[in-house]
């Protein structure tokens, strides 16, 4: 009797343990961390990742962004000391490739369905020269010219179709006592990334033109490049008084306060244009007469996986979910305003302004920012040469030809095809 009771107890305990052992892994919750430079996007990303947790209740993801300028350095440090996040935003092109080559991004080429949802072209910014993907493509940004629709109506202006039209429009706006273009030079990066590289594809003939420069078939100081620098010089006359010392935020404020009629900028800025006192819209940068118009649609962020993560299966589950058909609508409408998914199954965006921006890149052929794919991995960087040249031309320190020569000579120091 005593023995029987003992056996029963043992059996019960064993049975309970077995139940616990089976249920434990099923109930264990995994929390993944996701590193990012988009500190502004915590709200939207948290929402997006919550939708994922709803579908996979055992996996939650903590979005843990870093101050944008510190991201690359901080991430490098984390990865090298083995405390990197499980998942992280990956920069496109060389910056990302370098980290991949050091072995800090997992190879995700063989994730099921990746190649179906993303074309080779869409995957290229996050792949090495052998076509191995180190991140799932996530967001792209677009570029254009914001304009004050009310003011255009008041002055009887229409959206310019050619660069010559554009300059004539600027002249009319200036004559009416309004600053035509809000952009300035103080922060440097914006004149380069959202103005010069915004109009550049129009002057050099889009992606094919860029590839010719990259292959060394065209010199960087050819007539097309000089024409682009000339356009920047012409633009300077229509920038605000004291534009040499106006910052990116100043330019934004000039447009918002209706002191400037147009504003070259990226799609991400429309998130700050929510409570505007006037009707605004956006147009594609107009090409010079006789040239084809392009829109700079630039791959911005991919999502990579840490090869040392403790939860590779869970990480892959999230990555696959991000581009799955069922998540397409959630992703499209929850990634921050002004960012666009690159997936072929992307859903229609509900925000009207964002949609207008996206339509621009659907009705025009697109290219990426000129220097990103090949020209930033040496010294002097093509980015700096283009930036310094643009500013020098706009402040009258260099002629367009001199700026183009400086670009060619600088790149010839290290970029082999241009020698």
């Amino acid at each position, binding site marked *: 009797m005593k023995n029987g009771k003992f056996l029963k107890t043992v059996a019960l305990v064993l049975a309970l343990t077995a139940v616990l052992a089976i249920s434990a892994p099923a109930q264990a919750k995994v929390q993944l961390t996701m590193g990012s430079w988009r500190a502004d996007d915590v709200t939207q990303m948290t929402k997006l990742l919550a939708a994922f947790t709803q579908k996979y209740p055992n996996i939650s993801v903590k979005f843990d962004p870093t101050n944008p*300028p510190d991201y690359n350095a901080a991430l490098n440090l984390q990865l090298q000391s083995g405390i990197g996040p499980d998942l992280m935003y990956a920069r496109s092109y060389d910056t990302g490739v370098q980290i991949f080559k050091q072995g800090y991004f997992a190879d995700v080429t063989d994730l099921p369905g990746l190649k179906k949802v993303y074309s080779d072209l869409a995957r290229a910014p996050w792949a090495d020269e052998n076509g191995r993907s180190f991140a799932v493509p996530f967001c792209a940004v677009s570029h254009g010219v914001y304009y004050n629709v009310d003011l255009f109506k008041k002055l009887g202006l229409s959206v310019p179709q050619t660069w010559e039209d554009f300059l004539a429009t600027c002249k009319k706006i200036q004559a009416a006592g309004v600053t035509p273009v809000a952009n300035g030079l103080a922060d*440097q990066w914006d004149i380069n990334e959202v103005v010069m590289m915004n109009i550049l594809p129009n002057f050099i003939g889009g992606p094919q033109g860029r590839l010719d420069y990259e292959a060394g078939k065209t010199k960087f100081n050819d007539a097309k490049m000089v024409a682009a620098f000339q356009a920047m010089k012409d633009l300077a006359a229509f920038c605000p008084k004291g534009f040499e010392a106006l910052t990116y935020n100043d330019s934004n404020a000039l447009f918002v306060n209706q*002191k400037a009629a147009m504003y070259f900028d990226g799609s991400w800025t429309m998130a700050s244009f929510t409570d505007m006192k006037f009707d605004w819209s956006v147009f594609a940068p107009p090409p010079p007469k006789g040239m084809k118009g392009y829109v700079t649609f630039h791959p911005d962020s991919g999502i990579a996986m840490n090869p040392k993560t403790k939860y590779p299966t869970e990480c892959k589950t999230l990555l696959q979910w991000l581009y799955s058909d069922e998540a397409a609508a959630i992703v499209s409408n929850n990634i921050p305003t002004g960012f666009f998914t690159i997936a072929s199954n992307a859903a229609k965006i509900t925000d009207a302004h964002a949609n207008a921006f996206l339509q621009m890149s659907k009705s025009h052929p697109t290219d990426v920012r000129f220097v990103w794919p090949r020209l930033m991995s040496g010294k002097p960087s093509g980015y700096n040469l283009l930036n310094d040249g643009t500013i020098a031309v706009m402040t009258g320190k260099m002629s367009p030809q001199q700026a183009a020569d400086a670009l060619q000579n600088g790149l010839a120091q290290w970029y082999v095809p241009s020698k």
Partner: protein
Amino acid sequence: MIARAGLRGRDGAFWFLFILPALAVYAAFMAAPVIDSLRMSFFSGSGYAVDNFVGFDNYVKLFTDPETSTRFLKAFTNNWEFFGITMLVQNTFGLAFALILSAKGFKGKGFFRTIIFVPVTLSVLVTGYIWKLILNPQWGELNILLTKAGLGSLALPWLGDTRFALPAITLVSAWQWVGLPTMMFLAGLERIPEELFEAAQIDGAGGWLTFSKIKLPLLLPVIGIVTVLTFVGNFNAFDVVYAMEGANGPPAYATDLMGTFFYRTGIAGQHPVGIPDMGLGAAVAAVTFAVLFAGVLLANRLMNKDEAERGPAMDGGRA
């Protein structure tokens, strides 16, 4: 007796215990990083794994690579200009303020002393930002005032003009820090014995003569210290440029200082790639350190020589 003898016996080790905590802190937080930074200047590597020994390559690159050496030289000369203007403006005003504050019968000394000193207590990022707003070409107070005074042609984009950007930043820095030399000069002036002025007065010396023959010579040691502090502060400066212009020292590197050049090279990397070359950055830091070291050594030598020549007279005959 025994205890005292024992204490005396361990005398050598005993005093050492008192400076040990300070020495440990100094060694851990000052000496070790400086030495490690010097070591790092002989290495290269991507990101933060600086482990590839390259000998003097970083220094060779710093002085001969066209891109790097141009930036380095520009930052170096800019730093001298920054120092020159600071000496001329900040320390001259500091001396003038101290003379006024210490003048006999000057009312409101405490009030003005506070006013002059308040900016010193503020963060450079705050004052830099405020001045950036004041100097803004579209809505800055300065250009609005100039325009209202009929001087619209002088309303320039100060921080965006290669001619004016560095002087403008230097003046902002001088405005902020003028309180420090003022306080030091004031303390120096108040240390001058009253008898000297009385004697001078009896001998019929006027204000200028009193200043040039008594106050100025007796302030020389203070001037020396102020110069050294300004020198060290200026060659380590980074924040004021970062706050008002950004890490690239725009426009066209006109406001690039050793500090911003070092930050770009060794810490932040160049936008948008942002991967720093820490070995090269350490080389920049080492050169800055050498310049500072040489400067301070020279100043010390000059000051000591000065003191030796003057001898006791310095201290008004008290020493």
